[in-house]
Each structure stands twice: as C-alpha cells, then as structure tokens.
C-alpha cells in the first residue's frame, strides 16, 4: 500500500535519510523502530508532505505522492497521527474531532465518523464537551488517533503512540490499534517501545543512520541480536 523507495530527505541543509526503503502491505501493522535521531519521524513527515523529499519516491496506492501538498495527501487517505501533545488545546474534544473530519463533504459522514470514534474510545464520549487542554496524557493520545480516523483514511501512520504513557494505557491503545486494523485499515507505527511494538506488529523495520538496517517478521525480530545492538547501540540489555 505504501512504498518508500530510496528516500533522501532532511531539514534545511541537514540530511537525515540516506536512501530508506520500506513497504507496508494492505491491512497490516508495520512497526518502524529506531533510536533517537535516526530518521523515524522524518520518514513520516516526508510521507505526509510536511517536509520535501529530496530524492527517491513515495508511492501510495500505486500513485506517487512525494512533494504533494499535505492536504492532498490526506485527501488520498494517508493520515499521520501526531503525538498526543499536538491537539488544539483551546478547543473542545468534539471540535478537535470535527477538525479531523475537515475534508468530509457532508454532515452525515461527520456524524457517522464521530460515532465510530466514540465507539473505539468511549472515554472521549464522556469528555466530549471538555477543553482538550484538560485531558490526561492517555486521553490526548486517544483524541489524536480519533482525529486521524475522522477523515475515513485508508492508512494511518502513528508517531510514537506510547510516548510518556503508563503501561496499562499503552496496552489499551495498542489493543485499539489492533481493532482498527481488523476493521480494514493499514497501520504504520513508529515506536521507541520495541517490545510492545513488535508484539503488535506483523512486520518490523529497524532504521539506523537514515537507512533501514534490519527488517523481518516481528516474531523473528523480537529475538534478533542485531536488533538489540542496532537499537540500543551495542549494549546487550533485555529488550
């Protein structure tokens, strides 16, 4: 569904990605792992059009989408879900979700999708008139995922959904991501929490210094020595 081919990109004059290749199949969950500053988020930003791709191609549904304006990429069904801190704090939960469905044409679609999101995350229904600034960290992450789902995407890309959350809440959110996949969406998860991400995903990529270092089935990756080394910089810790 999503195919990244020899992607080179970066910020300003600083090159971060040095020819990354990856592929996400339809209706699968793929984990993109790596330490800080290796280029995980850069791939996402290039795919969703926030930064320019310098070289290489990004294909979505057999259509080249690199360097399209971000709103057109969203319209094609590829949505990036930001970290929980990137909500609109001065707006209510419902308004945040309505913004997620900004590209929808009719009010009925908006209503249906709102119901769908509340079905995934009943907590948001309880808090729907509250200002987003008053939500807890877990609820903010739910709100972000919900906002991503509002526009009827074909594929969502999650940027560290487990960042700074309690393990119980991470488990809850990951269960919901699995549910979302079962309902027909494709999911790409960028994670630092290697163990959780590999438990969830079907396939994994480990990125190091802007190129894909290791890839494979997540069950295999879980016991792969080189993953531990690549991810933790050589120290043999219990991943």
């Amino acid at each position, binding site marked *: 569904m999503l195919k990244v081919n020899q992607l080179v990109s970066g910020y*300003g004059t600083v090159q971060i990605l040095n020819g990354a290749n990856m592929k996400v199949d339809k209706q699968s969950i793929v984990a993109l792992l790596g330490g800080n500053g290796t280029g995980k988020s850069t791939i996402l930003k290039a795919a*969703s*059009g*926030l930064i320019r791709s310098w070289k290489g191609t990004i294909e979505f549904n057999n259509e080249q989408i690199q360097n399209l*304006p*971000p*709103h057109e990429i*969203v*319209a094609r069904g590829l*949505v*990036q879900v*930001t970290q929980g801190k*990137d*909500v*609109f*704090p*001065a*707006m209510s939960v419902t*308004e945040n979700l*309505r*913004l*997620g469905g*900004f*590209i929808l044409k009719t009010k009925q679609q908006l209503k249906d999708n709102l119901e769908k999101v509340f079905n995934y995350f009943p907590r948001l229904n309880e808090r729907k008139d509250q200002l987003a*600034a008053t939500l807890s960290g877990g609820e903010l992450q739910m709100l972000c995922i919900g*906002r991503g789902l509002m*526009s009827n995407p074909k594929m969502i890309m999650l940027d560290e959904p487990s960042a700074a959350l309690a393990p119980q809440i991470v488990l809850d959110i990951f269960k919901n991501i699995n549910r979302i996949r079962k309902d027909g969406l494709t999911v790409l998860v960028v994670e630092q929490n290697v163990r959780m991400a590999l438990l969830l995903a079907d396939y994994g990529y480990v990125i190091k210094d802007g190129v894909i270092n290791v890839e494979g089935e997540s069950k295999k990756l879980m016991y792969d020595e080189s993953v531990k080394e690549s991810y933790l910089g050589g120290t043999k810790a219990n991943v």
Partner: protein
Amino acid sequence: MFEKFRLGKRGENIIFTIFILMYVAYCLNSPDMSFESFKTVLTIGLSVGIIYGLVALGISLIYTGLDVVNFSHGEFFMIGAFAGLTMFNILGNQDWIFNLFPEAYGWIIYVICLFTAFVSMGLFGVFIERIFLRPLTKKGGGYTVAGMGIIICGFGLSVVLINVAYLIWNPVAKPFPAELGLPMEIGGLFLPITYVWMIFVGLFVAGGLWFFLNKTKMGLGIRAVAFSKDVSNLVGINVPLYISIIFGIACAIAGIGGTLVGPTYQVVVFMGYIILMKAFAAAVVGGFGNLPGAIVGGFTVGIFETASSFYVSGSHKDLYAFLLMIIVLMIKPTGFFGVQVKMKA
C-alpha cells in the same frame, strides 16, 4: 551607579497614584461637568473606539493567524474609505435609485458603499498577500520563520500604498456627503447620526466575525491554522489558502472601518497612519492577539481619548491613547485579556 535611582514597588505606586489623582483633579476642574455632556463624550468615545477596535481586530487576526504584525493595515483602512467614496460618487448621480427608494435613498447607497469596501478590500488583501508577502516565505518555514522580513515588507507596503493613493486620489481631503437624515440630539449637542451608526455597524461586524469563527466550518479551520500550521496540514486543511483568507478578512474589516469613518470625518490619503498607531494601542490594551480584547481595547482607548480631550485638554488629543497604553502595560503587561501564547484564537 544607577541603583539608587530605581524606585521600589511602593515608590512606583505612589507616583502612579499621584498621576491618577492629577488626572482626576484636572477632569473635575473642567468647566462642563454635567451628565448631559458626559453622554456626548460617551457617544463620541464609543464611535471612535469601535473604529480603533475594528482595525485592531484585523491586526490581531493577522497576528494570530500569520504570526506577523501587519504595519500596512492603516493603509487598507484608508484605501477602504476611498473605495467606499468612489462607489458613493458613482451611485450618487443615479436618479433611478432615488426614484425607486425616495425615503431611504441615502441609507441604501451607504450600505452598498460599506459592502463595496468590504468586498473590494477583502480581494485587495488577498491580492497583496499573494503577490507581495507570500514570495517571502519561499525559503521554507512559512510565515513564522519569515516574520521579520514580512514586518519590514509591511512598512514598505505602507509607504507604497500611500503614494499609490496619492497618485490616484491626490492629497486633498475629500468630503463623504452621505445623506443619512437629520442629526440626533445627544446630551444637548446635535451629533450626526453617523456616530450611532458607526457603533452599531462596528458591533455587527465584530459579532459577525465571532459567529464566523466559532460556528462555521471555515472558522474552525481558521482557528486551527492560527494555532498550528503543521497540525492543520495533517488534518487536511489547505493552509496557504486559509492564510490568504485570514489576511483578506482582516483587510475587509479595515475597509469597512474606513467607510464608516468617511461621512463623520473626511477621507484623506494620510488617514491610515494615525489610525494604525491608535489601533496598536487598542490591541495592546485589550491583549495582543485576542479578538474580543481588540474591541474592548478599542472602546477603552476611544472613551479615554475623548473624555481626556474634553475634560483635560483638547490640544493634545493624540497623546492620550499612548498614555493609556503605557499605563495598562505598567499594571498588566499582557493587556486586559492577555492569554498564554499558544492558547490564542
């Protein structure tokens, strides 16, 4: 060395109180202290204040949406007044309108003029933004990064627009003889009805903007863009288009302000400059970047200015707005409705 010249909190308070007492004493000393004259002062103050408020609204809107301060906003106000006047001169010679509506002839023409100013200034604002400001953001990073360049460009635009207006309409002050009926008696003084009309239209425009921002889908998008361009991109908002819309709306509101002022005062090429400065004072008093604060700040500045020039001294009329701004900044540096930076809009 300068340590000993510094006043403590207490010293500041004492000097401050002395100033306020002096001001009050001056006011009480004025020859005309009746309630009737106060009503006149209040009406004029509110009508001047809503004009400052409307321009301040535009400045605040551009500041929240684009993260830059637009120093050419006074010129949009001035050109808006000329646009209204031009439309007025065209329609003023048409007999058929007079034959059609002999009763409300002046009002209908005036409303058409207001509408013309609104629409033409909106389109003109979008044009200016696209042609002159957008290219500055080509280097990447959008308006937030290109901020200083755009502020300087705003100064330049201000000079250019004044000179263009000078070429087209020449520097002679032009009357705007809108026929809006007989003057009203307020507080023993006969005031043109335009004073009251200004307040109502101004509040209507401000209310309309509030409704637009809070109740419509496009308004929701504008608030999202004002908060964060990146997140707005990710939910599928066409951010460059919305930035143009924000600039256009701000300019359209300034244009309405210009046409509102026209019949009461006069239309001159240089009217934008002082209005811009007063509007800045109003925006700062209300809390920079806060939209209701802009209107409240405009009213405060307008009433304070009118009351001071009536009761204290009329020969220093332009001083009081900035005096008020300094006082407010001393007491509450964020202005009346100042908010945390990223809770804006």
